[in-house]
């Protein structure tokens, strides 16, 4: 029966050919390491968010009078509602963590270098979209934390002269965060961002497929030093087969991901729920020590430290542009970061600064 089904599919869609060329005969570099699975892990994390998000949509009501209560009902009354909400909340934080780790490892292994500039750009934009996903979802429970964090972030564009106020007005749909803002953010979170994100993710994956997997720069001659005069897909004829060698690594990391997720859900259920996240939004009382999600704490703290709002935001926009355009700015051929002390020093400095600002921002 099973064989008949396989034959039926094979004669119609070339199943055997697909399995052979894309899975069994597909070769990966011999010195590939576990960090290469982070991209796959990010895709799994997105899939978890999509599934749990759709499940939550069944009970969530996007209106200020009902949003908080509907989320409380999901947590307390709907059977296993707490599980799917916790998976969604914990998953959103893990997803951003995985995406950041993916970008860091790609950077350290120099895999953003030509001809992979556009792959980096697509990944960088996907990371930004992921953060916007997190930010737009933050308002939906309509808690004190979500309301005031959204007030602060939607006020940021006002730092820009001439167009700043208009941007803030369009984001919020008014002078303040209201039911109009909630509707907008809900539409953004569930309908506008997903197709945009999938497009960039699709471009990112297509480019990886077209260009081929890059070998790590550690311990082998870098073949990509050839002059870039024509398109050539990078293949690894002497490498390991994708299945089962790399597939097993991916499955191992996927299980590690779920283990971390369920450990947090089970033993640290309040990790991402400070006190203000359990209070309904009060538009007339700003809670003390309001702070955004951890992944926005460093820019938030930087804004606190720089007295001029316009300067504070402009400096962050410049850093963001440099981050996205880095493959076009870094034209040095050496991929191995261990042989580039200045770049390594700057990277470590920025990473330490980011961590310091993050922990500093946690304090009142």
């Amino acid at each position, binding site marked *: 029966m099973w064989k008949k089904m396989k034959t039926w599919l094979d004669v119609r869609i070339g199943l055997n050919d697909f399995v052979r060329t894309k899975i069994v005969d597909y070769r990966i570099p011999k010195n590939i390491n576990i960090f290469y699975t982070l991209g796959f892990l990010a895709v799994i994390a997105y899939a978890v968010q999509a599934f749990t998000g759709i499940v939550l949509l069944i009970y969530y009501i996007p209106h200020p009078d009902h949003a908080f209560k509907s989320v409380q009902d999901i947590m307390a009354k709907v059977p296993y509602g707490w599980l799917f909400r916790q998976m969604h909340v914990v998953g959103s934080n893990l997803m951003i963590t995985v995406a950041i780790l993916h970008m860091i490892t790609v950077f350290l292994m120099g895999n953003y270098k030509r001809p992979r500039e556009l792959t980096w750009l697509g990944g960088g934009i996907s990371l930004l979209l992921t953060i916007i996903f997190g930010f737009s979802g933050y308002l939906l429970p309509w808690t004190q934390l979500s309301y005031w964090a959204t*007030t*602060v972030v*939607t006020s940021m564009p006002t730092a820009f002269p001439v167009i700043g106020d208009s941007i803030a007005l369009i984001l919020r*749909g008014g002078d*303040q965060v209201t039911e109009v803002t909630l509707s907008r953010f809900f539409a953004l979170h569930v309908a506008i961002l997903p197709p945009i994100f999938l497009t960039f993710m699709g471009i990112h994956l297509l480019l990886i497929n077209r260009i081929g997997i890059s070998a790590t720069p550690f311990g082998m001659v870098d073949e990509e030093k050839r002059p870039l005069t024509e398109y050539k897909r990078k293949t690894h004829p002497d490498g390991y087969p994708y299945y089962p060698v790399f597939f097993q690594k991916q499955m191992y990391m996927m299980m590690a991901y779920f283990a971390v997720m369920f450990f947090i859900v089970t033993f640290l259920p309040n990790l991402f729920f400070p006190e203000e996240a359990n209070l309904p939004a009060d538009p007339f009382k*700003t809670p003390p020590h309001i702070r955004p999600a951890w992944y926005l704490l460093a820019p938030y703290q930087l804004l*606190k430290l720089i*007295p*001029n709002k316009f300067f504070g935001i402009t400096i962050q926009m410049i850093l963001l542009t440099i981050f996205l355009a880095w493959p076009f700015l870094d034209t040095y051929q050496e991929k191995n970061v261990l042989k580039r002390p200045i770049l390594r020093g700057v990277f470590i400095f920025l990473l330490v600064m980011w961590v310091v600002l993050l922990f500093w921002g946690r304090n009142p």
Partner: protein
Amino acid sequence: MKRRRFLKIILAFLGSITLFSFVNSFLKFLAALPARTAEINKLIIHKNEIPSGEAKNIIYRNAPAVIINRSDRGFIALSRVCTHFGCLVEYNRAERRLICPCHAGNFDLEGNVLSGPPPKPLRAIPLRIDGENIILG
């Protein structure tokens, strides 16, 4: 002019009109809706409600505001919306100032910035005293 070039110009012209019309409509579509809650355009508060040195939080024209009874200079009404990132300032009686909980912006009782990142003073709301009443609007 060659026929092909003429068609290209027409195509670009029609495309521009379509794009401009669409973007214009789309931006207007995104523009703010009128507030759904009824606006309070006139507010009357009895002076006895705010003893000297105290303050009272109010909602005026759908926005949070505060009336402060300054012991030396009488009543003043200020918007509570911080000019930095829109958090609501709180009156601190002990320090005789208004403090924003988000980024520690400090304002004096005239609404002027004392310290912190706010770029502008708090917006003052005109009020008048009529006998025992404070009237806004």
